[in-house]
């Protein structure tokens, strides 16, 4: 008898005849009623509380803002995934390094910053979610560099709540949920940003033309 069969047989003996359980789904889909603008404000506030730096721009303002953020950081090499709009980084005064499948981990380790889009953002928790879609690149490129700039399109990429986020995501894709920069509270519960993931996270809320 294999362990698989043995374990399954034990489970059947142990659980047989137990009570059937209905799952109540009367919890809330969203906590509170908000306008799209209020949802974006909540996202910004919750991101900031966990030490992400939040910026707002429209398409016109995004180009200089990106250039300024990367220059302020002193980034010389900036990683850009396939599908990131080329015009976004038009004014960036640094070497743009395209993410290639052949890039080694050590090459990625030599990069200063990475700029990506996202799949969506969750306002109630201050979370951005990446699914390796266009403009987001591989999981590793938002992990190894020390600085991540993430662009969120407002309002169409922003949802209120975790239940709304899961509805929109495809579980077969590699999913990364990011809430603030890497952090630890392991030493006397003092919060320290940045252990292994990026120590700095800039989030740009990109508003549609005329929306602001």
């Amino acid at each position: 008898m294999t362990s698989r069969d043995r374990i399954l047989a034990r489970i059947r003996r142990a659980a047989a005849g137990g009570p059937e359980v209905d799952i109540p789904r009367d919890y809330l889909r969203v906590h509170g009623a908000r306008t799209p603008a209020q949802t974006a404000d909540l996202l910004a506030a919750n991101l900031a509380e966990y030490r992400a730096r939040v910026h707002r721009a429209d398409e016109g303002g995004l180009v200089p803002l990106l250039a300024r953020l990367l220059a302020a950081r002193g980034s010389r090499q900036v990683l850009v995934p396939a599908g990131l709009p080329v015009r976004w980084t038009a004014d960036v005064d640094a070497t743009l390094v395209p993410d290639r499948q052949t890039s080694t981990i050590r090459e990625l380790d030599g990069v200063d910053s990475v700029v990506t889009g996202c799949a969506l953002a969750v306002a109630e928790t201050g979370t951005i979610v990446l699914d390796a879609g266009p403009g987001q690149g591989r999981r590793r490129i938002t992990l190894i560099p020390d600085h991540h700039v993430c662009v969120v399109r407002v309002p169409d990429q922003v949802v209120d709540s975790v239940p709304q986020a899961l509805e929109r995501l495809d579980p077969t894709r590699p999913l990364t949920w990011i809430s603030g920069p890497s952090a630890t509270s392991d030493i006397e519960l003092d919060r320290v940003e940045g252990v292994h993931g990026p120590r700095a996270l800039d989030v740009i809320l990109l508003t549609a033309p005329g929306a602001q």
Partner: protein
Amino acid sequence: MTGTHLGMPAFPEAAREAVRDGVLRANLRHATHTIRDKRARAVAELADWDRLRAAGKAVKDHTLRHLDRYLLQLEAAVTAAGGTVHWAADADEANRIVTGLVLATGEREVVKVKSMATQEIGLNEALEAAGIAAYETDLAELIVQLGHDRPSHILVPAIHRNRAEIRDIFRTEMGRWGRPAPEALGDDPRELAEAARLHLREKFLRAKVAVSGANFMVAETGTMVVLESEGNGRMCLTLPETLISVVGVEKVVPTFRDLEIFLQTLPRSSTAERMNPYTTMWTGLGPSRGADGDGPTAFHLVLLDNGRTDTLADEVGRQALRCIRCSACLNVCPVYERAGGHAYGSVYPGPIGAILSPQLRGTSSEIDASLPYASTLCGACYEVCPVAIDIPEVLLHLRERVAQGGPVTRDGIRVTLRPAHGHTAERAAMRAARLLLDHPGALRAGMRLLARARRLRPRRLPGPGRAWTDTRELPAVPAESFRDWWTRERGNPQ
């Protein structure tokens, strides 16, 4: 379940040692009170907390009722997505499987993301015996590993260490494992975290094999979910070529949608955050089968029983399998706060450990027989549990089993336990209690007698009661019994 720390004294002795340690008590008090206050605020933000709690409990109970079906569904989904599923009945088998998988890669070191299941089975020791070095990469786990120590808390395993101790450990030990600590390392948490970052990055960038646990596994899709804060989890789950996840069978949930409950309750209950900094979800090798360099090219899932199906067979005790390892129960427990995690002699400390360890391991050892007594039964652990595990109920159930024996399932076989040694006092007390409760007149007379004799109160009880008072202060006896007071104030209680 292995992992009983060899020579571990029973809980009362271990706790007595711990409460004498002033530094430990101060560290623990600060930690537990800080987390519990923050947690209460994070939970209060969600008006539907009670409904989320009820839903989480129901999802887990439903899954346990049909665990065979969901595990088979999970196996099919993971396999279809390019992963390989292994089944391990006990710790030895799980260790054999993992060791074999690592050796087959030709590698002799692995990086690990914090995993209680692998601690439970003693995987690091098994790998070491096979000539494989296992590096813990969570900052707290690194502190524990470098300090030749054991974890003392589920969430913050090195909570018993202060910054000066951590600096000393880094200074003396880091060089033996890889990149040494920087010269003149201070004790600022920022500096210490930076030292860990530099030390571990070397290992991440060269690691070919990683070992992880998982917080959840989704039967419907085969998706694995890991919640963490530092990014060491993402490093382990993304960069190495081979990923081996060792996960208890109880961690499965039926649908992707079910995560909407636990992704709300786990972070708030655990770290008191709206969401933890990083959550990674992956399904087998992903749509590209790992061909695009976005994740491992080989994924192995080891499904671990190791006492879980025996626990499932106990109608009262099985609710412990709902646990999502948030550690909220530790932070509100007056016993944990004073005794610390080491006293529990298991990777699962605190109230949840007191009901989980004796069920996973059985109650034949002295420490496991003593764990159901490591509680005041105040009920605070039940109040905070995000999946509503009635820990006091299970504690009482296990006390009865320890004191009186009874039917139990071990390795899938129904056996009858004999009463444990050393619990004659409890057995006598239970018999006496039954006698008195069956004879109200005797109870009233006894209490009056006790009240009148209160000035003569001894510090220890004579006879069979001595064992009881060896480990407890005898409470002060009130001037008047409650029943007498009630009768005087409100008339006859009958």
